[in-house]
Each structure stands twice: as structure tokens, then as C-alpha cells.
């Protein structure tokens, strides 16, 4: 089990996230949602060691991960929000780089990289520098890189960004398959319809605070709202979007 206990990050005194606590069990896909700037990426960056928490704990199987963060990260596959890649490398070179950094043996790595590239329709472009890749292709490379070393925990920050319909469908099924196989999936996204279909539990974040944490059915019942979108709008105090849309059109038409 992966557990976050009162995780807090302060940026020059201002809170990025405050007292985030959650649990992620094997076989579970946990939706982690919130409006822009609510602290989703900050939490994920703390989980992946890209930034240090100001306070709080991350426990993996009951052990504080800070004692062996590298050991924890060996069990984690991560897909970042932005497709930051070394674009001067080819897709194959990038997967080889990641595989080696994860300590995979050469022959196994070559076999896995080839297989991932074929399955994700990247095999034809495997020798091309990633500068020529589309956003979707880069996203698929990130997916392959995250899954290369068979992680137990998969952390996804907007994983569907740039994927076409087929690739998104494949990836959705893949996530369900991974969960069925006992992996823990933390899924952060703005696409609430997908979250609703995939996740058993959701955590809703607003301005750095957890404002709801329950199963989707539980939240809908609690707030007497028909969909996750409406639950989300209510909890994150979204303004009347119709009014705002009209205001934008007015500004646009100003002479």
C-alpha cells in the first residue's frame, strides 16, 4: 500500500499543498483531480522525488520512503504532465537510456524496448530523433518508458494528453489491466469522464487542500449530484461558466 500522511509543501511560505493524506491499495486506480493550480502536480512531484515535502510522510508498504527513496522509485513508473524528453535522442535511444538507468540487463532491455515500440505503433520511427515526433508519439514514448521496468506503482499526470482516440482507448484498457494485475495507479487528470470510468476512488483537491475523498458513487450520493463533473464543480466552487463565457465574448468583440 502507498500512503501519504499529512503531506505539505510550502513555497516561500505560501502553501502548494496542505495536509494531503491518501491511501492507494494494490489493484486500485485512484483519481487525483482538481482545477489548475490546486496542487496535483506538486503532490506528484513530491511522490516522485522531484521536490521535497515541507512536512508529512510518504509510506510504501508501511515504510517511510525517504529512508530509501531510490528503492521506492525503482518500483514506480511515472508519466509527467509535460512531455519533457531529450528530443535529440531517437525513441529507441530514449527507452534504452531509461532502461539502463533502471538497471535492466541489455538483452532484456532490447527485447522490451522493441516490443513496446511495436505495440505502441512507434517501431517505424524508432531511429528518428524525437524532435520529429508528434505530441501523441512523445506521450507514447513516455508511457513505454514508465512501464519498461514493470513498476508496482504507476503515477500518471495527464497521461491522455495528445493521444488519439485509439491510443487513448488502448491506454484506458491497459490501466484497467494493470490494476487487475495488482498494480497501484495514481491517476491525475482533467478529463473527468475518463476518471469516472476508470477510478474506484477519487481525491478532489482545491487550492492545496483535499476537499473530498471517497468513491465516486459515494460522492454523488453525498452531494445528490448526477455526475462527477457536477460534484467537481460544486466542490471546487466553479463560477457560473455561462456568465464567464459571455464575458469572454464581450472582451473579444471590444473595438
Amino acid at each position, binding site marked *: 500500500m502507498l500512503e501519504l500522511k499529512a503531506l505539505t509543501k510550502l513555497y516561500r511560505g505560501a502553501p502548494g499543498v496542505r495536509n494531503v493524506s491518501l491511501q492507494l491499495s494494490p489493484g486500485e486506480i485512484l483519481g487525483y483531480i482538481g482545477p489548475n493550480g490546486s496542487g496535483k502536480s506538486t503532490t506528484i512531484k513530491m511522490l*516522485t*522525488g*522531484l521536490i521535497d515535502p515541507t512536512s508529512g510522510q510518504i509510506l510504501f508498504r508501511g515504510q517511510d520512503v525517504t529512508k530509501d527513496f*531510490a*528503492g521506492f*522509485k*525503482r518500483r514506480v513508473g*511515472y508519466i*509527467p504532465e*509535460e512531455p*519533457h*524528453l*531529450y*528530443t*535529440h*535522442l531517437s525513441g529507441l*535511444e530514449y527507452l*534504452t*537510456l*531509461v*532502461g*539502463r*538507468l*533502471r*538497471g*535492466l*540487463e*541489455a538483452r532484456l*532491455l532490447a527485447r522490451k524496448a522493441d516490443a513496446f515500440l511495436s505495440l505502441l505503433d512507434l517501431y*517505424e*520511427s524508432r*531511429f*528518428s*530523433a524525437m524532435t*520529429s515526433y508528434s505530441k501523441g508519439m512523445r506521450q507514447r514514448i513516455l508511457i513505454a*518508458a514508465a512501464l519498461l521496468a514493470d513498476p508496482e506503482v504507476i503515477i500518471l499526470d495527464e497521461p491522455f494528453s495528445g493521444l488519439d482516440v485509439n491510443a487513448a482507448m488502448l491506454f484506458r484498457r491497459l490501466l484497467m489491466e494493470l490494476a487487475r494485475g495488482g498494480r497501484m495507479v495514481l491517476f491525475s487528470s482533467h478529463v473527468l469522464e475518463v476518471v469516472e470510468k476508470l477510478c474506484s476512488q477519487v481525491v478532489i483537491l482545491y487550492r492545496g487542500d483535499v476537499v473530498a475523498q471517497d468513491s465516486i458513487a459515494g460522492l454523488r450520493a453525498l452531494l445528490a449530484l448526477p455526475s462527477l463533473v457536477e460534484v467537481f464543480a460544486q466542490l471546487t466552487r466553479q463560477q457560473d461558466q455561462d456568465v464567464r463565457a459571455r464575458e469572454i465574448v464581450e472582451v473579444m468583440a471590444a473595438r
Partner: protein
Amino acid sequence: MKTWLEQTHTPVLELTRHFFLGLFRSESFAGEDSFSPLFVQILGLLIAASWYIPVQVFGRYVRINALPDGYLYHLAYSMDTLWMLLVMSILMGLVGVFQWPSLFPSQRDHLVLSPLPLTRAQIFGGKICALFLFFAMCIAAITLLSSIAFPMVSYGRWETRPYLLRAAALLVGTNSCVVFMVLAAIALQGVMLAVLPVRWFRATSFSIQIAILLLILCAAPVLPYFPTRELIEGRSHWLALLPPAWFWGLNEEILGASNDFIGGLALRAKVALPASFLLASTTYLISYFRYTRQAMESPSQQRRPVLAPAEWLSRVSPAPQARAVSSFLINTLLRGRRQKLIFFLIAGVGLALIIENSMYLVLSDIYRPRELPGAVRSAVLSLPLTLSFFTMVALRRVFRIPADLPANWVFRFLESRATRPAQLNAILATFLILGGLVPLAFSTPVECVVFGAKALVAIGLQAVFILTLGQYLMIDWRSIPFTFAESAPSRQLVHSLTLHLVELALYSFVGAAWIESAINKWIPLVALLVTVALILAFCTRRRTEEWGNEPFDFAETPAPLIESLRLFHS
């Protein structure tokens, strides 16, 4: 002016402003998102370099004008004029090399600007205007001051020609010469653009940019020995092969020289200038009509690369994590344009120094024939040391230039204490192979020819020197190259240069002299081995202290630094 600059103007003017400012956003030196005010720096450097020429020759003309005969005055004036043209060509060449990627509208320009309500003519018009403005400023900075000052500084009792004529002739000569250099650069790139497929163009163009840079750097040390008196007095036909000499001929012709030799050179200048203009314009026109196809043609490679040096070289490291770092390092060095350009710039200085040494040996009369073989032996022994010094210093500098900085998350994410020492060792091994072994291999044949069997001892000692220098230069290195943001330098530039000069003197010149005596006698050999072993042990110990205990240094991605030239807003 300020109000005018703040207003929105016609598309061509706005594009001119955009392209003009882009010429100072040097991706070779600054971060990709930073906007350095290179404008002032470039012009200041060019003016200073141009002003250096008249200042340098002032004392000499005082003495020459005091001579009882005017022949030497006129000879010196001719030689200095040609020398000025050569220096100016080199300066303009350097500017051209650094602006090489900006001479034509690029694929990025097409992708960004074409969706906007702009015509292709406007994009090309803006580009041409910006280039014209930029090069006009550079040309003025290089030529004006020295062309006006030199005839004044050299004036003396043997001068009969009016000042205005001499200044006008020099202005025509120098300006035509540097304009020719710019047009020739545009024409050269334009021809490549017109002839080569896009997938070849980028690599070829970059190789030519590097080749020109090396040519300029290697030509610079020859300048103090050129032009020789014999070349001018003997009316050498070699001068006909040198474009700046054509414009020197033009200058001489305006001053009244009338002979076939000068006439021939001047004629070349008169043909070359319009021809280069015509060729540059034609290739620009071709590029204009083929722009969309050129910009959108995919340069991607679909085949497995025939040569994969990163794969081969990374095999020196057994651990996969170390091999990852090693191959990443080599691939980035091979493909990073900024990294390669800076590397060749610094390594080129080393090459220039070696050429300067060789020229000194060949041309200087300081060595008598009996002493020359000894000097050649020293020069050959210092060859791999000098070259390795510059390549290693260049590599260390280049390692600090980040590549796709936000992508370093993959190294940060997968960093571990267990693998850190192996990764740091892989960095050092790659550093030594590229910076030390390659120069040593390059100079081995020359050493074998000069020293015969003793070359083996010399090469062995040089290898130990290279290993020691490698350990010394990487003593505090605790990062994966290309993955961290450049912090402000800890030392001033002058301080760094002085330190490097001392290091170079000790390593290359003192080292070569010591090796020379060590390959002939036992006592210096033992003393050398003991000394180097002690230094090596010290450096290795210092380098591996706390080895891998501290995490790698990954500075947070810095916020883009925007420094305005105040051409947009106050």
C-alpha cells in the same frame, strides 16, 4: 524615437524588428529562453578590435617616417593595408559564422509565422531588412574607425597622396571586402539550400559552419607572419587566391598604382563583389520559391544509424546505469549544436596555438639550423598535451551547457546513491577518451616518425599526463553533464583565463620539456614518474572523497531571463 518604437508598424517593419532582435538571441551562447544584450557586446568588441590596428602600427610609422628613404614607408603602408583587410575579413567571418543559422528564414520561422496573416514576401522582406541592418552595423563597426584612423596614423614626410584619397580608397577596399565576405557566406549557404535535400542540408550546413570556424581560428595565428615582404615585392601569384588581396588590389588601384599585378587583383575584386551579390540574390530567390517545401520536408531518419559511436564507447562502463550516462553524454555531444559549436571554438583555439607554434618554428629565425631539430622535438611532444588540454577544457565547459533542461527529470527520478559512483566514473572515462585519448591517437603517427622506438615511452608518459589532467579538471565534478542549469561562474573571466594559462604552461610546455629529457635519461624519468604519480594520487583522492555521497547537482530550472534592449517598451 521611443514612442515610434513602441507603436505597431507595418508587417515588414515588425518582422524586421523580430528578426533583428533574434540575431542577438544567440543560441550558441545564451540559454534558449534568454535574451542577452549581445548587441552592445558585439559592436563593442568589433570596434575595439578594429581600433587595435591603427594603435598597433602607430609607433612603427614614427620610426619608418624617420628613415632616409621613402621606399620602406610605401611598402609598409601596402603591407599594413593588406593586413588590415585580412584582420577585418577574419572578424567579419567570425560574425558570419555565429549568425550562420540565421542567414535564411528557418523552418521555425515558417511554422510560427506562416499561420499568421503574413505573405511569404513579407517574411523574406523582413528577414532581408534585418540582415541588412545587422550587417551594416557590424561592417561600420569593423571598418569605419580604422579606415579613417590608419591613413592619419601612418602619415609622415614620405606620404605625397592626399589624406582624403587614402581614406576613401581604404574605405572602399575594406567595405567591399567585408561586404563580399557576407555575400559569399549567404551565397554558399544558399547554394547548399538550393542543391541539397533538407535531410542533408542541416548536417552539411552545420559541418561547414564548424569548418569555417576552425579555418578562421587556424588562420588567426598566421596573421602576425603575413603578408611577408617577399609576397608584396615579388608580386606573388599566391595573392590572387586570397580574396582580401583582391580588395587590397582595388585599394592600390584607387591610390594610383598601375601595373598588371595590381590591375589583375582589382579586376578580381570588381568581378567578385557583383558576382557574390548575384549569387546570393539568386539563391535567396530560389529559397523564396521553394520555402514551403524546404521548411516542411521531413529531415527525419528512418534507418538504423550505420555508425553508433555512443553505443561503442559506452561499453567501457559495465553497469547499465553508467552506460546510460555515457551514451547520453556522447549522443548529446554529437547532436547538440550549441555544445558542438562551443567545443570546436575552444578546441580550435588549441589548434590555432599549435599552428602558431609551428609557424614560429618555420618562419622565425630565432632557431639556428643546429637548434631546429630540438625545437621540433619539443613541439611534437607538446602536440598531444596542448591538444588534449584544450579538448578537455572545452569538454568541461560544454558539459555545463544544458540540453533540454526540463527533460532532466528522468535522471533526477532515477538517481540513486548505489549507482552514483559508477555513473561519475563513466563520465570521467568518457571525458578521458574523448578529451585525451583521441588527441593522443591523432598525434601518435607524428611522434613515431620523429622519435622512433622512443615514441612508445613518450606516448606512455603523455597518457599518464592526460590521466592526471583529467582527474584534476574533474576534481569537483558531481553532476551528469548537460542536465543542470548553468550557475553564475565562480571566477571572473580574467581569473579563469590566467589560471588556464598557468595550467597550460605547466602541463604542456614544462611537461613536454620534462618528457623530452625523461625519454633520454633515467633520473628525469624516475623524477617525472614519482611527481606525476603523487599528483595523480592526490587528485584521485580529492576527486573520490565523498564520492557519490552527495546527490547529483540538478539546479531547478531557472525562470527565463528576459533582458530587454528597450526596443519595445520603456
